[in-house]
């Protein structure tokens, strides 16, 4: 094998799926590299869950192929799933089982040591409820238990469909830390989310899907930059902001005043020269912050006004 060749843990080729007259996924080519934290974005009905289910062999594509670690899913799906942990959107588990029974059951399916179940319950903060039935759990607790089962056996690939749905901010933070910790040990994380700040915070690569079609797949930075956004320098000054804007305009910088703060789009290497320019002209800078390009803005621009719910009608 060529040592410079990219290693893809998930690769899809011209994946296609329709439900009656709705084209849910159309000619989808995804490339998820080993070690990625990969964000899978798209509006409701874009085809994210359908794609995830096809990657797992839970639904069958009309055409196209899925490869996991270069192996064709349709030929060795059962074996391949031993290296995948999966959390479906709005996970439901067996209501009559307790938390520990649930994890023990899934540990048996994955053939992993049941001692890991106790450790995972501790990690997700459900030790106290280990003997309580899942039917008595809140939505967030079920979600946490669902996450724990996905982590069983330390799978090489985690596929999570809206993992923070139903979690309060504290547990969202715990989940993000767990994912980053697993990723630092080599686990590839593939997850779909509506929360773009979350994706921007966690992911190194993203794909945006709309009406079953791949709009873009790249690093978070390139996707954000792709809509020609620049970092923004936001300055709070002492005195009249209009004077500062005049100075900036005179020197070729576009800027605007929002709530007495001056916002200047610029390249990263221009920050010092702008600050020096203002100070040399007698402007007193109280504070400044730099705002990086936003994935949210990029998402909205890529999807545009086309972001209607559902796939494309044939």
């Amino acid at each position: 094998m060529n040592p410079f060749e990219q290693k893809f843990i998930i690769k899809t080729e011209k994946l296609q799926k329709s439900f009656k007259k709705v084209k849910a996924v159309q000619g989808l080519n995804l490339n998820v590299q080993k070690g990625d934290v990969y964000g899978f974005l798209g509006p409701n009905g874009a085809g994210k869950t359908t794609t995830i289910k096809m990657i797992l062999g839970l639904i069958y594509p009309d055409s196209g192929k899925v490869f996991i670690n270069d192996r064709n899913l349709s030929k060795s799906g059962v074996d391949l799933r031993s290296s995948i942990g999966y959390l479906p959107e709005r996970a439901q588990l067996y209501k009559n089982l307790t938390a520990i029974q649930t994890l023990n059951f899934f540990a048996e399916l994955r053939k992993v040591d049941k001692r890991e179940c106790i450790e995972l319950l501790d990690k997700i903060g459900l030790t106290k409820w280990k003997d309580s039935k899942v039917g008595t759990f809140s939505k967030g607790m079920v979600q946490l238990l669902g996450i724990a089962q996905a982590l069983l056996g330390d799978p090489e690939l985690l596929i999570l469909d809206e993992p923070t749905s139903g979690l309060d901010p504290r547990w969202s933070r715990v989940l993000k830390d767990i994912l980053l910790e697993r990723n630092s040990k080599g686990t590839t994380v593939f997850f779909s989310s509506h929360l773009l700040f979350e994706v921007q915070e966690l992911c190194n690569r993203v794909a945006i899907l709309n009406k079953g079609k791949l709009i873009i797949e790249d690093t978070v930075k390139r996707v954000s930059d792709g809509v020609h956004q620049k970092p923004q320098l936001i300055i709070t000054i002492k005195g009249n902001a209009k004077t500062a804007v005049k100075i900036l305009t005179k020197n070729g910088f576009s800027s605007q005043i929002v709530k007495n703060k001056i916002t200047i789009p610029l390249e990263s290497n221009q920050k010092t020269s702008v600050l020096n320019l203002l100070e040399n002209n007698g402007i007193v800078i109280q504070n400044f912050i730099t705002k990086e390009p936003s994935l949210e803005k990029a998402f909205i621009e890529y999807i545009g006004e086309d972001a209607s719910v559902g796939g494309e009608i044939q």
Partner: protein
Amino acid sequence: MDNLRNKWILILTVLFIVLTLIISFVSGGGSLGDIEITVVGLLGISSLLVPIISIMLGYDTISGEAESRSLLVVQAYPVSREDVYFGKFIGLSSVLAVSTTIGFGISGLLITTFVGGTNPIGFLIFMLLTIVLGLLYLSLSICFSAILKRHTTSLYAGIGLFFWSMIISSVIMGVYLGTGGTITDLTGGSMPDWIWSATMILSPTDTYQTSILLGFDLRTASISGFGISIPDFISLSNILAILAIWIVVPLVVGIYFYRKKDI
């Protein structure tokens, strides 16, 4: 899973013991009746109860779990569709088999102890055939659950088939009467062979009841005012073959659909 299974086993076992003893008591006119009388009395109840229990156990195994999304989690593990499908069939079959064996077994022992002079082999055949009847409806209900999307539709299909099995012999007899047959033939124990063949093939409930009579070596009997004379070409072995087909065919059809199913 084990706890849930054990709970079902306990409930069904107690139900079978209580029912058998009540029927034996009623059939025996205020004291425990012998095994043969008890089994004849039980036939009607077990023909109704066991299929309904089996349908209730099996109807939401696939479609219900697919709707509740727990099947998504299970099938994302390294287990094949066959593992899940047959695993569910075997698990639920064990619930039926264990509860039937213990429930009827205990009551059978009690009757043998207190009444004596009984036919233990016949009773053993009754227990085995009751398990077979349960497996048959379980196989059918899991098959419906694999084919149909909604668990409520699977339930309706199971109940529909159960009613079909209850009425099909009457329909066949109706056809016979409508095409020149006489009521005397039907009640007098001289039904034409084709009615027997059609009923044995199309109605699992009638097949089960006939097989129980054969298990007790009763080729002629009177049930609900009907004189029954089972023709010689119907034997326990060919009835068992028919029941086996009723179990195997839905299992094969069900797994065929489940393998293709989008979860």
